[in-house]
């Protein structure tokens, strides 16, 4: 049996029955990483020794009577998330050989649950991008077609799951960076409600938008990972004090009577026809499963991309001010402090990051603040209201995750704005702080995966997961696996 094809639940069951050990499972995953990385490049850092140690420790914990669905399960962690004692780069050269001095809260929680970190996954630099092409280190390739992008910014996290290099990963999502790569790579990824999961120890991009979330081969896998990482953290003042439900417990409760809203603004010109077809077919499936489907409107959809790029870049310009060559990372020596800052940052940051810092600095600067930043914050309120209005009569909103399937490497790098527009369906969800999942709903004629997005009310991850699970179990998309290497 190829252990790397197991879902988290299947692996947990075999581990619980002592039919396999975590050492065996982790070793199988390590072999798979070794044989496939030359094609995919999901990982910036592979932590083989640490992983085998942790696998051994998990087996010992189990021998002492411990249980738990994540005990001994190999997972990958996006390289914007701090892992103590292990190099953390945020996908950027500016952090040099930075070794994280502490664990992020989400890392801590996975460790407590006994998960085994196999490595740090590749991402767009500082999580800025939709293709992982902005990584300061290497290009990650889409396992379904190696000439195409895995999506971004959590491209490595998505490709690692799709390529069976681990059973689950953590990514982060600021404008779609979990959901869009999940769609590109045919896996499941969920961005929780803002404030559901702690951002402590997560390299900040845009603090009012960033969230950590899981990716896995199926909805149940994501549910288990989410349950492990969610919850209040006193070290993150934006994390919300609300109890964490057992997300995997009610997955199969069904969706009879679930009111599903389909926003007309999410079916636009320029969308790939196969994407529209697959999503509409998925909606029919939801109806057959008992959902009540209606067309709804989110009138300010067209303003979401500019609103996001004003707010996110403004927050990023502030968050990235700390990379100054003094406390950590790269340093370009110079005669004056100012020159040292300027040269260190010029050398260490890639061009997309510089672009966003410049944009953000501009929209916050004297004379422009009101016209751009304050304006965008007001439009953000209008966007939130659109969703609140729809959620008065609907339980979930269903849309395509992205307007197209995975594009070719290099296809969108010459025009930044083109790249930004690929976030069109995911971005509003971050602005409104809502939970959203992407799961596979078909494949195009090229064999590339198509993603379905399900969005819920704040803190209603259970409803979102339940709807996703019902759809998943009524279809076979989740059983299709990558082949060829």
């Amino acid at each position, binding site marked *: 049996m190829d252990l790397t094809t197991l879902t988290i639940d299947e692996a947990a069951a075999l581990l619980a029955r002592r039919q396999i050990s975590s050492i065996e499972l982790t070793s199988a995953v390590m072999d798979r990483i070794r044989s496939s990385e030359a094609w995919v490049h999901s990982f910036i850092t592979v932590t083989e020794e640490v992983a085998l140690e942790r696998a051994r420790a998990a087996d010992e914990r189990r021998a002492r009577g411990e249980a738990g669905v994540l005990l001994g399960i190999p997972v990958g962690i996006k390289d914007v998330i701090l892992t103590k004692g292990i190099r953390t780069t945020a996908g950027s050269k500016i952090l*040099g050989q930075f*070794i994280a*001095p*502490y664990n992020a809260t989400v890392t801590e929680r996975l460790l407590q649950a006994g998960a085994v970190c196999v490595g740090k996954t590749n991402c767009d630099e500082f999580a800025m991008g939709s293709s992982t092409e902005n990584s300061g280190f290497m290009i990650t390739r889409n396992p379904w077609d190696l000439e195409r992008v895995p999506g971004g910014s959590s491209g490595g996290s998505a490709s690692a799951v799709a390529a069976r290099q681990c059973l689950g990963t953590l990514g982060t999502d600021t404008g779609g960076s979990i959901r869009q790569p999940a769609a590109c790579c045919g896996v499941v990824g969920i961005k929780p409600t803002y*404030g559901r999961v702690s951002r402590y120890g997560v390299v900040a991009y845009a603090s*009012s938008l960033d969230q950590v979330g899981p990716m896995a081969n199926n909805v149940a896998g994501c549910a288990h990972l989410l349950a492990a990482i969610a919850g209040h953290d*006193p070290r993150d003042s*934006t994390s*919300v004090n609300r109890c964490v439900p057992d997300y995997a417990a009610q997955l199969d409760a069904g969706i009879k009577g679930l009111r599903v809203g389909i926003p007309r603004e999410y079916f636009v010109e320029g969308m790939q026809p196969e994407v529209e077809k697959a999503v509409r077919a998925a909606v029919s499936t939801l109806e057959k499963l008992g959902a009540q489907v209606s067309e709804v409107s989110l009138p*300010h959809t*067209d*303003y979401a991309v*500019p*609103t996001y*790029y*004003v707010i996110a870049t403004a927050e990023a*310009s502030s968050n990235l*001010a700390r990379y100054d060559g*003094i*406390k*950590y*990372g*790269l*340093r370009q*020596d*110079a*005669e*004056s*402090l*100012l020159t*040292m*800052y*300027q*040269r260190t*940052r*010029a050398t260490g*940051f890639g061009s997309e990051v*510089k*672009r966003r810092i*410049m*944009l953000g*600095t*501009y929209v916050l*600067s004297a004379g422009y603040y009101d*016209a*751009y930043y*304050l*304006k965008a*914050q*007001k*439009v*953000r*309120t*209008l966007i*939130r209201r659109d969703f609140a209005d729809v959620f008065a009569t609907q339980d979930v909103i269903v849309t395509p995750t992205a307007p197209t399937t995975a594009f070719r490497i290099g296809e969108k790098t010459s025009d*930044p*704005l083109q790249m*930004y527009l690929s976030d069109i369906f995911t971005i509003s969800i971050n602005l*409104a*702080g809502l939970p959203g999942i992407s799961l596979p709903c078909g494949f195009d004629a090229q064999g590339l995966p198509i993603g379905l997005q399900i969005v819920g009310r704040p803190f209603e991850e259970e409803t979102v997961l339940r709807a996703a699970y019902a759809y998943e179990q009524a279809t076979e998309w989740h059983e299709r696996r990558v082949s060829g290497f």
Partner: protein
Amino acid sequence: MALSREVVRHIAVLARLDLDEQEEAAITDQLDHILQYFEKLAALDTENVTPTAHVVEMTEAFREDVVLNPAAPEELRSNAPARDGDFFKVPKIIE
């Protein structure tokens, strides 16, 4: 109104970024294009709309100002590119 190189140069100073001639030209073009796209927002009437700074309804995010779980200073300094014992070394600030 097109974005000028002067403004871009000024922003680069604020952002502590050293841009070379080529980068400056490219960024000016790209930013100009993107900022024109942002003009879309001006079309919306937001006269009586409260800005959203934070999506979650919460007010009390404070706690008592006491030290909890102090991280070992050595760990926090260990990544410094230039240090002198307990201190981070920097180029001379005061003439």
